[in-house]
């Protein structure tokens, strides 16, 4: 394996919640001691329910949030210890695509300017280079060639996501955080955007952190998959291992919940209960309140995140 582009160690993120009159209303632990690596050209899928902390990790990794604890190394240097200029240089190589493309595009900006915004900020493009690059980007993400003068509302959801991707790849990044890029799209558009991301990865040698709540989509983009629950990674494994023999009961439950396009076959099974509040997480293993296998020990002891085979990690008391 080549050296990692991104290396995250012991990452934790807590938010102080403010109550009335400035009193503290408690601490919300969104991310709790998370570690992983992503190597060049690789995609790590990050799966979990809403509120599991997966988007917070995405934001931490691109430097939009400052971690309370832990280390994020990009190309071997800590993204936080640098001065502003050094941070900017790293930040240029690291981009993010958001779930809601409408919310991340200025409705009053023509899309050629929206796509060129990163170029303008970088200050490295002359007007001619800028125009050429915009043209190139529009083609690269498969938008109609003459669409530069239009506004974002004139595009469909799938096309808006293409605009978001064009912005993200504008400065030739090495690494992109895809934060639920296809969750808001129809199946047909979802497949198009996933294929576009795969093509771009090959063409531009990109690495992705692909965040989603849908295990089925993640399977087709990821080399390895991490499953998050209540701020922790509960299982991390190469794609084939994870899908052929999921170890953690939560991973299993997530798979059973995917509705299969085969009528008359077994029905999808949900996970009873809800994602626990991160303000007041359950004792022991956070999943014990919903886990079919939970026993006494799960309510008391927090299971360690352990290596069970070469690249397979899991946090559960029942895994040998």
């Amino acid at each position, binding site marked *: 394996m080549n050296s990692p582009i991104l290396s995250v160690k012991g990452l934790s993120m807590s938010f102080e919640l403010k109550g009335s009159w400035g009193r503290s209303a408690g601490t919300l632990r969104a991310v709790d001691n998370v570690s992983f690596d992503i190597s060049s050209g690789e995609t790590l899928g990050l799966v979990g*329910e*809403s509120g599991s902390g997966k988007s917070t990790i995405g934001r931490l990794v691109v430097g939009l949030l400052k971690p309370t604890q832990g280390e994020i190394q990009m190309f071997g240097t800590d993204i936080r210890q640098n001065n502003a200029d050094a941070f900017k240089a790293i930040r240029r190589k690291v981009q993010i695509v958001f779930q809601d493309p409408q919310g991340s595009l200025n409705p009053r900006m023509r899309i050629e300017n929206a796509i060129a915004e990163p170029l303008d900020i970088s200050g490295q493009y002359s007007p001619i280079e800028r125009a050429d690059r915009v043209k190139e980007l529009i083609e690269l993400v498969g938008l109609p060639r003459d669409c530069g003068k239009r506004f974002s509302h004139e595009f*469909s*959801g*799938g*096309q808006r996501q293409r605009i978001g991707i064009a912005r993200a790849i504008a400065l030739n990044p090495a690494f992109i955080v895809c934060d639920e890029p296809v969750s808001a799209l*129809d*199946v*047909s*558009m*979802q*497949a*198009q955007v*996933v*294929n576009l991301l*795969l093509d771009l990865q090959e063409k531009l040698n990109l690495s992705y952190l692909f965040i989603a*709540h*849908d*295990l*089925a*989509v993640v*399977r*087709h983009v990821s080399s390895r998959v991490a499953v998050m629950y209540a701020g922790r990674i509960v299982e991390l494994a190469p*794609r*084939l291992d994870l*899908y052929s023999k999921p170890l953690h009961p939560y991973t299993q*439950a*997530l*798979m*059973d*919940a*995917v*509705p*299969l*396009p*085969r*009528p*008359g*076959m077994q*029905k*999808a*099974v*949900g*996970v*009873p209960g*809800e*994602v626990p509040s991160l303000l007041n997480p359950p004792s022991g293993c956070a999943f014990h309140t919903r886990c079919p296998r939970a026993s006494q020990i799960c309510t008391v002891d927090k299971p360690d995140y352990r290596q069970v085979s070469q690249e397979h990690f899991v946090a559960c008391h029942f895994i040998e």
Partner: protein
Amino acid sequence: MTSDELLRVSGLTVKFLGESGWLTAVEDVSFSIGKKECIGLVGESGSGKSVTALSVLNLHERRTTEISGRIEYFGKNTLTLPANDLRRLRGGEIAMIFQDPMSSLNPVLTVADQIIETLQLHENISHSKARLRAIELLELVRIPDAARRVDEYPHRLSGGMRQRVMIAMAIACKPKLLIADEPTTALDVTIQAEILNLLRDLQNELEMSVLLITHDLGVIAEFVQRVVVMYAGQVIEEAPVMRLFDQPLHPYSQGLINAIPPLHIDMRRLLSIPGQLPDSYEIHSGCRFVARCTERVSTCLNSQPSLIALQNGGSSRCPIRVELSGVQR
């Protein structure tokens, strides 16, 4: 209408007044829903499925909408029903739940207030009795600790819980037809499966019919008996759910099925339907799907195909596929 039909939509056409004139959103849509039957309405965003559903309850803005056709419910045409009768129908015999529960719930009223409001609107029931019913309903939709939760405000509930509250409100007056417009699209898969199971159980218990609108064929396969597939404002295929998945008789239906990412097979690329919905439906003379179709022949460009009724029930708008399949017309 036959005796086992609950609702029949025939020749529904809906036009909206846009900046550049009238736009056809739905054209000549016909289908029926049987008693206790679950029907799925499938299509991409913009295919006209929500517009069709809103027409059933005549919920369109009158000044900017032109509706023609008939929607028969127990011998009444909901499109021409007087406002008072319509109001009794809405939320009473025909109830609706939407994709985003937060924007359908009133943020400044408690859950109890909102359910009681529904009950008192449709039934002659005292406030205290209605409150007890509200708690019963929350228990029915499996909200734990219902007696306490009933006094919560919507923002205190999770997305899944809010959708359960919406369902509780919808079934409060024991509707005969529940229209569910993308009820699980905004939810996590784990919660989605729970909500679908809940809806399935309620449908059996209350013996209601369900019109489920979604773009997710996985959800369709789980839930419904019959499927109506819409594309660009038209019905392009109607089929029993088994037949639709075994032998889709329209390339678009096939495309939708193929586009579902499989959970148990590895595919490095997903099968997508190229292109997107046309902006305006009137421009070309041929089949509306022709630009995205991988099976098109020259005749597809010439004339718009009409819906072909099939002998074993269902219909398709693709003469080529019907011909090849050998299914009797």
